[in-house]
């Protein structure tokens, strides 16, 4: 391990004086070794190998193929667009919920938390399946709507982008709620009371005090939801019915049907680059707007 080697190579003079502290440094660094070793072998190495594969023969041929085909570009921007919609939807739905969880009485907060945690821990496939039962042409929602005479024929809710969006928001909403909730718990409530006491209307208190104070949570939750959205596979595969293409599906197609590993590798690298870019952008945004 480089780390342990670096720690061990302290100047001899200081080593005698700091021997106890130095020993602990070595010990704590050594504790990380098994995990780091595992990650180095089965995580870092495969990714480097994938990168090498994407630049096969030291050329950009696979990337040119990816860009020139046109299909990837369309799917890529479609994925980014869907991820953005999902992130905004999660923020709109989740922010009030996080506030409710942070301020409600103990019993209600527990109830609300259960409503968020239970789906969060339920199998993705179970939830996707349930949405198929709910949203299908003969699904529960359409039956109710037609039965009530609100619509004449079933609404197209499944096997299109709407179905995918519903499924993704359902999966990702807890990822937005938890960070915002954690930040809201620590917000000093007397600040809002003071502003209100000084005559500020409610929306001003929200805009000028509560939102800026909870922005770190919104940034963290939003980043998480956006980044996770970019790589979604199961939900678009099942609820999109083959009509909604996202990057992960395209990659699976390249590998599963075309056996084109080089191109799949190039697509993977592009997806990773997009995720790193999004992460950096959100981080900057969060820092600039931080109070």
């Amino acid at each position, binding site marked *: 391990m480089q*780390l342990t080697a670096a720690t061990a190579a302290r100047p001899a003079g200081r080593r005698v004086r700091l021997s106890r502290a130095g020993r602990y440094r070595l010990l704590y*660094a050594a504790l990380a070794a098994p995990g780091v070793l595992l990650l180095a072998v089965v995580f870092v190495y495969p990714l480097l190998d*994938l990168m090498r594969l994407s630049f096969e023969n030291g050329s950009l041929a696979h990337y040119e193929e990816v860009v020139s085909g046109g299909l990837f570009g369309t799917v890529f921007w479609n994925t980014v667009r869907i991820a953005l919609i999902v992130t905004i939807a999660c923020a709109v*739905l989740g922010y009030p919920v996080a506030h409710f969880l942070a301020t409600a009485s103990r019993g209600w907060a527990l109830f609300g938390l259960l409503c968020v945690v239970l789906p969060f821990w339920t*199998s993705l496939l179970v939830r996707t*399946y349930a949405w198929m039962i709910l949203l299908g042409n003969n699904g529960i929602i359409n039956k109710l709507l037609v039965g009530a005479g609100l619509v004449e024929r079933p609404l197209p809710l499944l096997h299109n982008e709407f179905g995918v969006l519903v499924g993704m928001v*359902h999966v990702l909403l807890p990822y937005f709620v938890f960070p915002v909730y954690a930040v809201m718990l620590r917000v000093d409530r007397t600040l809002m009371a003071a502003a209100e006491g000084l005559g500020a209307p409610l929306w001003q208190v929200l805009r000028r005090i509560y939102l800026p104070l909870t922005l770190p949570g919104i940034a963290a939750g939003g980043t998480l939801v956006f980044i996770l959205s970019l790589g979604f596979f199961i939900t678009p595969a099942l609820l999109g019915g083959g009509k909604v293409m996202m990057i992960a599906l395209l990659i699976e197609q390249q590998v599963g049907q075309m056996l084109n590993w080089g191109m799949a590798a190039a697509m993977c690298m592009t*997806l990773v680059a997009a*995720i790193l870019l999004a992460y950096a952008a959100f981080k900057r945004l969060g820092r600039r707007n931080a109070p």
Partner: protein
Amino acid sequence: MSAATIRRRGSMGRGRRAARIALHAWCGLVFFFLVLPLVVVFPISFSSSAYLQFPPPGYSLRWYREFLADPNWVDAAWRSVLIGSVTAVAATILGTLLAISLVRGTYPGKGAVEQLVMAPIALPSIVYSVAAYQLFSTLHLVGSWQGVAVAHTVHALPLVVVVVGASLRTIDVSTEMAAQGLGASWFTAVRRITLPQIRPALVSAAFIAFISSFDELVIAMFLGGINLTLPKKMFDSILYEIDPTIAAVSVLQIALVVLVLVVIGRFGSGVRPTS
């Protein structure tokens, strides 16, 4: 107090009350949206019909019997339990060591180790699956449950480090130092003083690691080959043969999760509203 202030207070109170009602209505709708899919699978799993009918024409346990009688389903379920258990044990041990190292240690490169450990969270499993396939086929791990367990351990590791690390930060390091001052070795101090204090977090972390593996599809699909895990079997079943068996499986899974949450709530940390 003048009449004007009283009037303003009154209108402010009304505004607040309206905002409160709106907030509660909104949250009610969102909670309904979140819970609805879980509620829907229950009646369908007890349906007596061979098709997805809602409401079901009659009730029976036939889809539960169907699940238990089909070796494909049962094998897949056991395989997932096995992979999940191995993942839980491996990730909890390695993750706890990492968490202790990252929270207590000060050594050069610690920041890099922390970022490395957290990286699997942000990496889409499709990318990881494509990447790992080459290495795993060289090692003859593709198509074996062990390979899936290794990959799942990588994915569960950051979750364990987050949960255990958070718990480690809340406990007082001085008790551990006191034990060592009284002559205990570092190992004894950690084993007898530190680990008992973070035991709830260890329980939570192990369950979280288990569930994360138990529910994982994409990696298992790529690396599992013909050895179907439960999620893969469910995926195929949803794609090709929608019948209420999958609803019965779903109900059993929800029951398992509720059981796990109860156990975590009883012995673990992380699901309570107060922090």
